């Protein structure tokens, strides 16, 4: 899984421009899926058929990452931009950018000084990207060109450090669960969704298409085990979170209990999750169409939405095991 993670977190895929990621995942899942489909927004569906005795289950992991898009080229050839999804402005100074056409750039901000104004943080709109151009005419980036903050993945012990575990690690877990899922009573749709970071848009249409009975998102959640971290209980390495509530939804209580039971039966560590910020694709799938029993497996992730997110390899492995455990057995709500 480490190799696949490296491949996916180093692929280009800001919201709305997920093609490169989709191509890579499609290649991985093709040998294991009974059917593969891509819809008009770019969601990728890999269907693993059940024996007919189970439910229709959707497993959603989003392919998109937070990114940026050029809004304006100044006369001096600098690129102004806006965010695709929630960028924390503090992460921008000095960051490297890769645009869709391969152009590299470096971010700085208006009125940047070495020392002064350290306590003030201007918004994204007061930053610019230097791509080496000297005028508007010779700037290779055009208005509307998307980009991402660029970083490679590094491994140190059991910790994997990368720019977009959110949510490529969910994609990895989805792919791996499909590979390991020998038999299932359920028709399982592994959905690799688009445009989650701008409002769970892909998942909404995917759920309308599938109308699943059960929808489980696989996404990261902020780990709180750092100095004065989030006011919640979520430790790196203590196992996947099983969602009970977040800002966007209350999980189906029967499903959440069943997920916890499956973890206990299989001796997989887990952490009940009540998240006070953010939400996942499950939110959109819960309310789409006739509605589904929704829940989520959450991978503890330090420094979410920064250029260096950190997950623990054991949590990734346990998430896969938990997902396979849930999918290979009956789901009674």
């Amino acid at each position, binding site marked *: 899984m480490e190799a696949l993670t490296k491949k996916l977190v180093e692929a280009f895929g800001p919201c709305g421009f997920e093609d490169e990621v989709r191509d890579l995942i499609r290649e991985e899942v093709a040998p294991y899926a009974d059917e593969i489909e891509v819809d008009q927004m770019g969601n990728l569906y890999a269907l693993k058929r059940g024996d007919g005795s189970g439910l229709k289950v959707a497993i959603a992991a989003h392919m998109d990452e937070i990114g940026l898009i050029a809004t304006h080229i100044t006369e001096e050839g600098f690129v102004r931009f806006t965010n695709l999804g929630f960028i924390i402005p503090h992460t921008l100074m000095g960051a490297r950018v890769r645009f869709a056409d391969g152009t590299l750039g470096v971010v700085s901000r208006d009125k940047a000084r070495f020392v002064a104004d350290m306590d003030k943080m201007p918004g994204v709109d007061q930053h610019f990207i230097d791509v080496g151009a000297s005028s508007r005419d010779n700037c290779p980036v055009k208005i509307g060109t998307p980009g991402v903050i660029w970083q490679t993945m590094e491994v140190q012990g059991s910790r994997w450090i990368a720019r977009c575990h959110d949510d490529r690690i969910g994609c990895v877990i989805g792919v791996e669960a499909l590979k390991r899922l020998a038999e299932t009573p359920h028709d399982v749709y592994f959905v690799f969704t688009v445009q989650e970071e701008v409002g769970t848009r892909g998942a909404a249409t995917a759920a309308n298409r599938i109308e699943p009975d059960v929808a489980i998102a696989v996404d990261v959640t902020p780990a709180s085990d750092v100095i004065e971290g989030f006011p919640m*209980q979520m430790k790196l390495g203590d196992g996947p979170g099983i969602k009970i*509530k977040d800002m966007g939804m209350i999980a189906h209580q029967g499903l959440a209990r069943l997920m916890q039971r499956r973890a206990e039966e299989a001796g997989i560590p887990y952490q009940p999750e009540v998240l006070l910020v953010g939400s996942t694709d499950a939110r959109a799938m*819960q309310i789409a169409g006739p509605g589904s*029993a929704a829940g989520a497996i959450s991978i503890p992730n330090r420094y979410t939405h920064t250029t260096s997110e950190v997950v623990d390899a054991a949590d990734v492995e346990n998430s896969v095991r938990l997902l396979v455990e849930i999918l290979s057995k009956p789901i009674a709500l």
Partner: protein
Amino acid sequence: METLQLLRTLSEARGPSGLERAATDVIADLWQPFVDSIAVDRLGSLVATKNGSGTAPRPRLMLSAHCDEIALMVTDVVEANGFGFLRVTAVGGVDIRHLYSQRVVVHGREDIPGVLASLPTRLLPEDRRSGAYGFEDLMVDVGLSAESTRNLIRIGDFVTFDQHLVELVNGRVAGKALDNRASVAAVTICLEQLHGRAHVWDVLAVASSQEETRLLGAATSAYRLQPDAAVALDVSYATSYNAKDSINVELGSGPMIDQCINIHPGINKALIDAAKALEIKFTHVGYGGNSGTDAQYIQIARAGIPTGLLSIPQRYMHTMVETVDIKDVERTGRLLAEFVVRLSADFIDTISAEMLEA
């Protein structure tokens, strides 16, 4: 059942958003005698069908009254002096100013009583001493050892408010969850009235789930049931000594018939006609934007559903002392029944044609 007893039964049932089963069980018992079928769907909404007398396929009217209530949820179990305390967060639009010193029930492995507590002002951090308490200051004290607390209660358990229905003077009652069990009571009265009367349309009565968090039950039920028309019921603002606004109406002045962008003019007119036919008190209210009720999502389910909205005036919404006038609840039930009885087989054709008539 007498309306007072009906309100008491409904108000005291425990159905936080996301775990409505105890409430829908109570409601199912109340509706059962008057309907042809009844079931809870996978998102927790209760759906009862009362068949009409028209020839099949009959047009179908959805009545939607949410049955969930605002509540709290455990986010952490912490220890002090060997005792267990619970950190909590809000489920739905809880007004934190009401929480300190409230009695609650924690729905753990068993139901456990508790009280919301905080440190005295002088022991709070300096920057927390003025202003209302925040969730970081409050905790539920269940009076159990830390070990027992951990054995019985886990992160993610629901906490509901523990408040019995109180009878006030002038036929008014106060209690928890009257937002929106007062409307569930009105639907119950409507179904009871319809029991003895002929109506052409099928009636699909829905006690919808998770309105307080995201209008979930209404949205998914409307999509699944595909009714030809719908009426949502909720509570709305009544004037009180500390709340006066142009939209507010007096307690006891009858149901409000809402008009806003969620409302089909044809349904609105039919509701007003029914109220006039019964000669009951009502108030026609209008405002900009969305209603923030079940009507909002029912209207936009699938290709759109003509929707109306009735509101019962209520004081002190989203507290444990929500106050309504029993007569308003009864009037709303009677108005609704009259509206249903007056629906003709070609009602939808008529109101659709009016959309293109000058």
